[in-house]
């Protein structure tokens, strides 16, 4: 007889793994840096959190540490993806050709002109 917490932990780990796989698939399928970052950040954050909590549930002595890991992932992952997106745009990585609108480019140019003057 397997304990109930082990089963819940395993389910959480399986959910996390499937999101990770979907995130990796998104990295390959989506067309440009920004879209790929979207898939990567969301799926991989939730996947990693889910796996951490799953391990914590399987072994309750690790649960508090797993929660701390989840909190730090939640804080740091969006920041790094934001930095990559901003850096990519500023170093001239173009948007995908199917993009419909770009409000950022003009605003950035306007701001830089203001700073120069």
């Amino acid at each position, binding site marked *: 007889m397997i304990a109930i917490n082990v089963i819940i932990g395993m389910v959480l780990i399986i959910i996390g793994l499937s999101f990770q796989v*979907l995130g990796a698939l998104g990295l390959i399928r989506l067309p440009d840096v920004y879209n790929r970052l979207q898939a990567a950040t969301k799926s991989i954050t939730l996947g990693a959190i889910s796996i951490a909590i799953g391990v914590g549930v399987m072994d309750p002595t690790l649960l*508090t540490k797993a929660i701390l890991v989840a909190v730090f992932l939640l804080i740091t992952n*969006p*920041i790094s*993806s934001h930095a990559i997106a901003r850096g990519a745009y500023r170093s001239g990585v173009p*948007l995908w050709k199917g993009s419909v609108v770009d*409000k950022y480019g003009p*605003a950035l140019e306007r701001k830089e002109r203001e700073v120069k003057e």
Partner: protein
Amino acid sequence: MARSPLKIVLTVLVLMVAWMMLTLRTDIDGLVQEIIAGALIALALGIFLSGILPDAGEGNPVKRILMFFVFLLIFFKEMILANIDVAFRVLHPKMPIKPGIVEVKPGMKSDMGKMILANSITLTPGTLSMDYIDDSLFIHWISVEDDPEEAMKPLDKAVKEVFP
């Protein structure tokens, strides 16, 4: 910047809880030891750090802490929706995406609120925050909607309750 006692108390509490979670001990001796060590370290750090931490801001602290949990609930719901959304877009053979960068004006004034909003927007469906220029936030949207401000309203409102 005033060093309000509330700020120091909250900093000490958060640091101490984090410390105790990190060094979880179950025997009574270890527990007492960790509480004393944790309290000392947290107190020292809390007093030093409270100078560089942002101000707590206006509003009733108890209500804001309760609203923070409401915000967490909304946030986790949105985050799970976001992952289902990504899964749908990635697995769909035609990949229904319509990306673009839009500009929205968040309602809050405090820097902390802006940071939390930008971070949580990155993890909610179809959006990735890119930059702040002056007071407007630029968001990369995987499928641009007609009215972006309307789409991010619930989250914006929830963050505004915590960090006005």
